[in-house]
């Protein structure tokens, strides 16, 4: 047994010399980038100094008694109903398109890796990359004001959202079952129906419910650009500086989103536990 003389005196470090230097350099570089970004964006950090207090004062003074009578009005409630309808319809359309696209975009079971895989990937990524409000503006431009534009914008959103999650779910399935179906001479569609869908059915149902939840959240906003639903009221009250009404509308959005989130969590828990 040798005496641990030389090593015991040295202070223990997690990272040894070259590694520690790289880590330090990376951290330094990152900090430089952050400060460069702050400078580039011309951010005045001193404005942040009392932002909390300012927001509080300004909420208390201008937004405080939310005009609850305004949001219990029948006209407004009709728009709330329209928002729900838009979210529902867009989720159904979006899922109907997301399922085949997710199938194309899942590398392991894609019907054609050369043609359909890039097609599915590109469609899903494209639908996802463009924010729902931009889709809303584009569809309003194309089709005019109203919920139809909103439904289409939210459909694109749902495709992007559900498609990505569904494809990822398919990519994580057990290969054995897929190979077994394939070995019987099944074509790509049969592989999908008998090898893939039974494995992802529960997860896909969960994703579908989640998509509805998230699409509803987006549906409350697309109206801001004229694409139907309660967002239009938000715009109107903001531009009219009717701050107490804006406050009431934001509160209704919060309440509805929380309710939809609770509902979707409950439904997902039920699906998963069965």
């Amino acid at each position, binding site marked *: 047994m040798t005496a641990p003389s030389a090593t015991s005196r040295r202070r223990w470090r997690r990272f040894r010399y070259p590694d520690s230097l790289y880590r330090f350099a990376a951290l330094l570089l990152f900090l430089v980038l*952050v400060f460069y970004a702050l400078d*580039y964006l011309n*951010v005045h950090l001193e404005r942040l100094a009392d932002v909390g207090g300012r927001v509080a004062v300004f909420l208390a003074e201008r937004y405080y008694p939310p005009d609850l009578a305004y949001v219990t009005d029948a006209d407004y409630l009709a728009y709330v109903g329209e928002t729900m309808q838009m979210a529902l*319809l867009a989720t159904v359309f979006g899922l109907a398109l997301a399922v085949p696209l997710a199938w194309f975009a899942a590398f392991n079971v894609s019907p054609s890796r050369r043609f359909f895989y890039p097609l599915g990937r590109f469609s899903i*990524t494209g639908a996802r*990359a463009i924010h729902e409000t931009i889709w809303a503006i584009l569809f309003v431009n194309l089709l005019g004001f*109203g919920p139809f534009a909103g439904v289409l914008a939210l459909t694109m959103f749902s495709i992007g959202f559900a498609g990505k999650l569904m494809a990822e779910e398919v990519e994580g399935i057990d290969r054995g079952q897929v190979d077994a179906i394939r070995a019987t001479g099944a074509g790509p569609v049969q592989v999908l129906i008998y090898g893939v869908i039974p494995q992802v059915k529960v997860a896909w149902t969960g994703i579908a419910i989640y998509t509805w939840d998230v699409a509803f959240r*987006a549906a409350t906003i697309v109206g801001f650009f004229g694409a139907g639903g309660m967002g239009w009221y938000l715009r109107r009250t903001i531009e009219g500086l009717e701050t107490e009404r804006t406050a009431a509308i934001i509160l209704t*959005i919060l309440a509805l989103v929380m309710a939809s989130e609770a509902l979707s969590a409950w439904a997902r828990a039920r699906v998963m536990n069965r």
Partner: protein
Amino acid sequence: MAAARGSSEGVRRSDAIVARRRRDRMRRYGLYLLAFVILAWVFHSTVVEATDWARIGSLGSVLETLGRFLPPDLSLAPQLVQPMIETFMMALLGTLLGAFLSVPVIWLGAYNIAPFAPVSYAIGRGLMTVSRSVHELVWALIFVAAVGLGALPGILAVAFRSIGFIAKITAEAIENIDRRSLEAIYAAGGNRLQVLRYAVMPQVLPTFTSVVIFEWDINIRRASIMGLVGAGGLGLTFYRQMAMFNYAGVTSVIVAILVLIGIGEVVSYLLRRRMI
């Protein structure tokens, strides 16, 4: 054959099963029908009735409108570089700020490490829900009103929108950590802070990092619309091109967004691969 042997018990039971299956099937078809009727009604009221079909015109005129967006206006390209960098940086700073701000929320909202669990848990979870429930556009409107125009409200909006998701996932990870390592640090005489540093942090840091990277990816697309309500970046360029009816320019902005998202996706993929 069981029936022939005179076991009326078995017959009755199998009849009951058949009847129940039939009832279940009928109920299922009934539900499908109901769902279909509801969907058809929703479709009718939101799409068929509420749309100004005369404004849309024929399919040809829609395609013509669509044609105005093509081809992209390449002359705009030099003017897109700066907004792209701005959007990228807004997303970066927003994510960073969100990650910092989420730390106290995580601490409050993770049941097993929270300072005074019953109360702080409710507060922490409430903050997470509010953060996620308020759309980034609404956050942006609030902060534009509070700190004025510019990139700062965009950064704040992105940050506040990210807190909820980062905090929720991390808090759930903390609730699932190995209790024994916490107890080991306590047993060695560690105080609460040391427990957080040496027992909790090492276990959840990978989750935290990967959720922050994931959120950063999403925040690029959030940052790209902040300009619509006065917070700079590509959204502002988009808004201006739209206001000038320069539809080819609008397409260029969309291409720029796609490029930026593509870069973000590649970077986040590389980062995540390095981390794991």
